[in-house]
């Protein structure tokens, strides 16, 4: 299989503190890759590096074939990003948000218009086109935020706790979108605190104190740690 992310001996230090301690892993094209770990394990630091927002202390890292030290601008064009904390501009309308992202990623306005219409039809949000984001239900915002993050058809999308706080039905509908994106060849790199969601990933890595302690399919991890579910696996590794 094609490797879309390769990470070899990624180290990130802040003064004397080692936030990422020799991380080595690959992510394959089209994979749903779960990136788990306790708070403070070093997940956010690693994601910021993989997105080209922070420079590692050392290590060889390639994202979609581009070098993390020299080609950060190319990396940014080829990835999408969404987090629970920030995703859309609350005081812009649905349509304005889509146009803004399309513009940032250099999508020609005619094409952006067509894609916007397609997207709103698919999300059944045509009636909300001119509504401000601040007035939308959380479930709608999340669907839209994810769709905007992949609007420029990136090779990889990074999702940082995308489902925090939403109701159980909406959370599952969101995962339908993730599956669909993965089916369309977009690689999904996702963090979550919901351990049932770890089961939906093709492979899962679990970080603890700056190191990757385990990386495999959910099935193999459960076998290896003699656990009934991913919650038990996580507790055995991170406690």
């Amino acid at each position, binding site marked *: 299989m094609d490797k879309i992310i390769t990470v070899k001996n990624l180290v990130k230090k802040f003064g004397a503190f080692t936030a990422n301690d020799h991380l080595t892993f690959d992510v394959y094209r089209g994979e749903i890759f779960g990136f788990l770990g306790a*708070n*403070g394990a070093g997940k956010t630091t690693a994601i910021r590096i993989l997105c080209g927002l922070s420079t590692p202390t050392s290590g060889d890292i390639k994202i979609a074939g581009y070098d993390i030290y020299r080609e950060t601008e190319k990396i940014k064009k080829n990835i999408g990003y969404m987090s629970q904390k920030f995703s859309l501009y609350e005081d812009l309308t649905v349509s304005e948000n889509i146009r803004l992202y399309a513009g940032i990623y250099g999508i020609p306005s005619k094409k952006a218009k067509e894609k916007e219409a397609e997207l709103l039809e698919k999300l059944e949000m045509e009636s909300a086109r001119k509504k401000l984001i601040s007035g939308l239900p959380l479930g709608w915002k999340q669907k839209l935020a994810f769709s905007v993050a992949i609007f420029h058809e990136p090779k990889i999308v990074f999702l940082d706790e995308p489902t*925090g*706080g939403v*109701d*159980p039905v909406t959370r599952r509908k969101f995962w339908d979108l993730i599956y669909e994106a993965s089916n369309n060849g977009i690689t999904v790199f996702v963090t979550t605190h*919901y351990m049932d969601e770890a089961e*939906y990933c093709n492979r899962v890595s679990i970080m603890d104190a700056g190191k990757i302690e385990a990386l495999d399919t959910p099935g193999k991890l459960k076998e290896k740690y003699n656990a009934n579910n991913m919650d038990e696996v996580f*507790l055995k590794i991170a406690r």
Partner: protein
Amino acid sequence: MIEIKNISKSYNDIQALKEISLSVEKGELFGLIGPDGAGKTTLMRILMTLLLPDSGEAKMNELDVVKDFKKIRHIVGYMPGRFSLYQDLSVEENLHFFATVFGTTIEENYDLIRDIYYQIEPFKTRRAGKLSGGMKQKLALSCALIHKPKILILDEPTTGVDAVSRKEFWEMLKALQQKGITILVSTPYMDEASLCDRVALIQKGTILDVDSPSRITEKFPRKIIQVHSEDMFRLIQDLRSFPKAESVFAFGQFVHFTGVNDEVEISELDKFLTERKHTDVIVEEIHPGIEDVFMSLQSL
């Protein structure tokens, strides 16, 4: 200990709470379970006397939340959803500040917070803003307890917290309950419901059900069928195309299926999936969990 009668609250044209009634017994660990926007924070802020209801009344230890707000503030501890301590005061200074505001000292009530505070005591000179998430949470809880409240109200203390820290936090709550404190806690994590004595399932300002977690799942009348196959994505799509499918939802390594009028048999599904060449198929009826119940009530 907490009596809520027909409380309503609106913000402009959004009705956050619709005639909510609820009572929490003395010494109970009571959970408000629901997603963002359900009205959990609004209800807690009304009980904390930080917000006035539009109508209805509520009492905390017999005290009225509107008339007796000053007295209530002395008997309740509150841990808001957002970290609200002074970031540029140290751990110890924050605790000292809260103790002084309530006219007490750290020493006087140290017993109550010892098990929690000793874990952050080594960092007592560090500024609160420089603490990790888990340590902030322990400090916030210590500050909420320093005046020895009768009632403790916690607004989503475990949101965004990893699975390990969540377990530890619930162990702390159980220990506080043992000391006689009545606890009202909210959470969006359905699996935490089972750790409460009783829970209210809340959605869009309405209470869907109130009962013990085991009673809520026992009295749930629907037949839940758990299904597994090697290819989960295809399994979900195939099950949704099953003619008598009512709901098909992923639940970790399984899919939970309900049939129209609960008339779908295990053998039917088994045959249907075998025909579609699924491998490692498991089809079995299971007892529903809180999340099954919530999802079913939510869609009514």
